């Protein structure tokens, strides 16, 4: 590394001090000038390196951005697929209707908060001691509401012979009874061994009347077990029976509280429970009257609503019925056939309504799209309420597609390509915006539908770009026309950004390959023209015939930001050849188009094309200079070189960096490689290397 550079890089570098030291040490002006030049060249080199780095990073950045956008769209599609799968699974699981056997959780009703806490603590303590005393009942704590209600020693008897069997310790909980056998050779805290647990909801407790040798006994019937127990006295037996009764009643009230949440809907239910005259074993079929009348009529009512196309009313009724079914707890845990039947019927109507609504949305050739998306609002909204947003979204997007098709067909292919593209892209993106609005209105908070929409929009855009490429990228189209079309499409596409949907990357991506080809084709056309013109070039200044002709020419070029006053000689002469002037025009036009088309992905091609064109022209001039011996003529040629290499390229760089942000490396290199020409020397030793991307990277 250059020692001065090292100095600059050091952290405590002080520019003022450095300059002062320099001026002190230097002897005379030339020394200072030399140093100044050195610093300047260093600065140029550094900025060049910096730019190269920036460019390199820039390319990396572009690559990364591309990757990200691809990933993004893949994620969208994945999420769409997943949500489709989910809805499929949902519909599958919904088809298995029965199996609603919810276990009944029994809770102890406690009023005050404090008591609750204390009781909870006591409950847990109690259960823990039981856990410690009884071997093999580790799942005792699994039911969080379980609490002990009674316990005691019992003697189990043979139910047939009434002879004693073994000693048992019984635990009555609020949800069942646990029997534990005495451990004969007991060690430590474990006193009993778990034997059985019987659910209260299915356990039959039978009092056994004292007769002969059997005293103080009761039976537990829990199919297939029949177990007979003898307690120590009449009062302990009574206590057991009473506790069993209490536990069962508590459980029953708990169940009833649950049922009472919709008691107003089935008022006769509680009556049937209380009235002893009624058959308590009554089966569910006989409780038909307990369902409200509206429910019984729901299926027929739904048919009428659908026939009258009163879908909103149908939905309200449907939801009401479903709500009723949801809250309905079958009496005695027996399936209520009336309810099951009604449920099935209502479910059929549910499907029917859904189908009718989907038909509304379906696209068919014999249906007019006159109503457009507005007409779809109602069925879409209703289907969403029915929980069918996936289907409604699918149909909605299908409808959008077919509306899009009709609108696009209506755009006539007449007049210039530009006009056609203008109308077409306006039609496509106006519809797209409109559809996005409608979509956001219909599916405001649905991620799965949103991803479906993005996939749809992406597909629509692809259809558009494919069509666009077929129509626009044909050999007859000039680069200028093409550019105008692309710019039109791009600006239309940007309208979607207002909805948070940016598809510009997809548009640019679709156009990248054909555009690269088109730009290179344009370059080939220009270089062909350069070759042709070079054959006819006579290397004489341009004669504009008159003063006014010269003025017009100057004005024309001033419009292109080119001041040619320095090249004027006499009244109507310009010290630039006609060839140089027309090349200038051609080049600037091409540059303009390229800069309009400029995207990060195209920048490489653009740079390459600009270099190639200028290189061709400069090479031609260089050849002319080499074969020219006459000093005066050489001076004239050098003037043209100077114009192209200095004036024209500076202007081009200015325009380039305004749009791109930095100057073109290709043009810079061109200037550097050809500086010798400016001094009238032909750089014969120059190796003509093909301009390639390697030199940038």
């Amino acid at each position, binding site marked *: 590394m250059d020692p001065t550079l090292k100095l600059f890089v050091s952290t405590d570098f002080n520019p003022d001090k450095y300059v002062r030291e320099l001026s002190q040490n230097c002897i005379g002006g030339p020394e200072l000038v030399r140093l100044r030049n050195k610093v300047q060249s260093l600065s140029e080199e550094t900025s060049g390196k910096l730019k190269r780095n920036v460019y390199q990073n820039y390319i990396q950045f572009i690559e990364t951005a591309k990757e990200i956008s691809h990933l993004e769209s893949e994620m969208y599609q994945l999420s769409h697929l997943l949500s489709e799968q989910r809805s499929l699974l949902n519909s599958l699981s919904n088809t298995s209707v029965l199996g609603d056997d919810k276990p009944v959780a029994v809770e102890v009703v406690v009023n005050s908060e404090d008591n609750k806490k204390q009781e909870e603590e006591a409950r847990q303590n109690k259960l823990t001691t039981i856990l410690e005393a009884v071997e093999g009942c580790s799942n005792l704590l699994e039911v969080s509401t379980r609490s002990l209600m009674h316990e005691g020693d019992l003697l189990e008897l043979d139910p047939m012979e009434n002879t004693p069997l073994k000693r048992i310790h019984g635990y009555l909980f609020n949800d069942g009874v646990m029997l534990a056998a005495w451990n004969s050779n007991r060690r430590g805290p474990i006193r009993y061994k778990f034997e059985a647990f019987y659910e209260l*909801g299915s356990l039959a407790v*039978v009092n*056994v009347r004292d007769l002969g040798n*059997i005293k103080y006994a009761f039976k537990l019937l829990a199919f297939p077990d029949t177990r007979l127990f003898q307690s120590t006295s009449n009062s302990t037996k009574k206590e057991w029976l009473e506790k069993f009764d209490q536990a*069962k009643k508590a459980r029953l009230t708990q169940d009833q509280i649950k049922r009472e949440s919709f008691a107003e809907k089935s008022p006769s239910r509680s009556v049937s429970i209380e009235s002893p*005259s009624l058959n308590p*074993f009554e089966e569910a079929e006989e409780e038909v009257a307990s369902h409200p009348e509206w429910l019984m009529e729901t299926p027929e009512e739904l048919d009428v609503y659908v026939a009258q196309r009163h879908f909103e009313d149908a939905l309200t009724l449907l939801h009401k019925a479903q709500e009723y079914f949801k809250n309905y707890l079958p009496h005695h*845990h027996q399936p209520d056939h009336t309810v099951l039947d009604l449920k099935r019927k209502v479910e059929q109507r549910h499907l029917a309504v859904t189908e009718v609504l989907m038909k509304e949305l379906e696209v068919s050739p014999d249906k007019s799209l006159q109503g457009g998306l507005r007409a779809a609002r109602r069925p879409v909204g209703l289907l969403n309420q029915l929980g069918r947003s996936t289907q409604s979204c699918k149909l909605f997007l299908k409808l959008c597609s077919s509306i899009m098709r009709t609108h696009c067909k209506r755009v006539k292919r007449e007049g210039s390509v530009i006009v056609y593209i203008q109308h077409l892209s306006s039609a496509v993106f106006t519809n797209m915006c409109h559809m996005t609005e409608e979509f956001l209105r219909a599916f405001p908070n649905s991620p799965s539908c949103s991803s479906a929409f993005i996939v749809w929009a992406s597909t629509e855009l692809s259809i558009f770009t494919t069509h666009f490429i077929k129509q626009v990228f044909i050999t007859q189209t000039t680069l200028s026309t093409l550019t105008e079309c692309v710019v039109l499409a791009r600006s239309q596409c940007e309208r979607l950004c207002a909805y948070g949907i940016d598809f510009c990357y997809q548009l640019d991506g679709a156009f990248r390959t054909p555009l690269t080809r088109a730009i290179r084709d344009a370059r080939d056309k220009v270089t062909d023209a350069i070759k042709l013109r070079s054959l006819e070039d006579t290397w004489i200044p341009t004669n504009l015939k008159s003063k006014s002709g010269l003025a017009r020419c100057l004005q024309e070029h001033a419009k292109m930001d080119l001041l040619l006053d320095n090249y004027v000689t006499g009244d109507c002469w310009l010290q630039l050849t006609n060839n140089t002037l027309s090349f200038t025009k051609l080049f600037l036009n091409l540059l303009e188009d390229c800069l309009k088309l400029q995207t990060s992905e195209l920048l490489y091609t653009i740079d390459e094309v600009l270099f190639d064109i200028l290189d061709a022209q400069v090479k031609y001039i260089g050849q002319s200079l080499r074969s020219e011996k006459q000093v005066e003529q050489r001076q004239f040629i050098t003037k043209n070189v100077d114009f192209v290499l200095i004036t024209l390229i500076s202007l081009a760089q200015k325009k380039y960096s305004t749009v791109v942000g930095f100057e073109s490396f290709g043009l810079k290199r061109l200037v550097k490689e050809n500086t010798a020409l400016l001094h009238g020397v032909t750089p014969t030793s120059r190796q003509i290397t093909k301009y390639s991307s390697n030199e940038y990277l």
Partner: protein
Amino acid sequence: MSKKPVTQPALHKVIMVGSGGVGKSALTLQFMYDEFVEDYEPTKADSYRKKILLDGEEVQIDILDTAGQEDYAAIRDNYFRSGEGFLCIFSITEDESFQATQDFREQILRVKNDENIPFLLVGNKCDLEERRKVSYQEASDRAKQWGVTYVETSAKTREHVDKVFFDLMREIRARKMEENKTNNGRGKDKNKRKKLKCVIL
């Protein structure tokens, strides 16, 4: 069942079913203790056992007097499962109790899964002829339809009280003997036995 003939005589398990207040407890108490209880006290579930002479053979009867009401179907089913024979009782003074017998019958058949389960239809309180609501014809028609016997009883006058218990026990005993026969041959699949009977008929 006969593996310990020394210790205990055969045990026949009878279950009293029927709506509340029809006289299940009254019939049971009359049979067991020869007494009639005037006042009505709803039963929970009581079981009785007694040694009796059935056609000269000493047997034990185990009577389960069920509650008029049971809120849990699963518990009800457990009562029924424990029985070998059923006395299905209604009061001839209460039509509703007669209608209820239909449900009891169905539930018992469902739980026992046996159409030929020992079963008697009992019309109680026949001493209250002046308050009869269920005709003899009507009741015996239903019994015929089920293929069971219909008997009218009075817990108060003891009319036919012994008869219903003894008839049911005979049915149970016959049933067990038949079962033993099939058991010697094969398993106790009740459906198989049913088929067998159909062939005989």
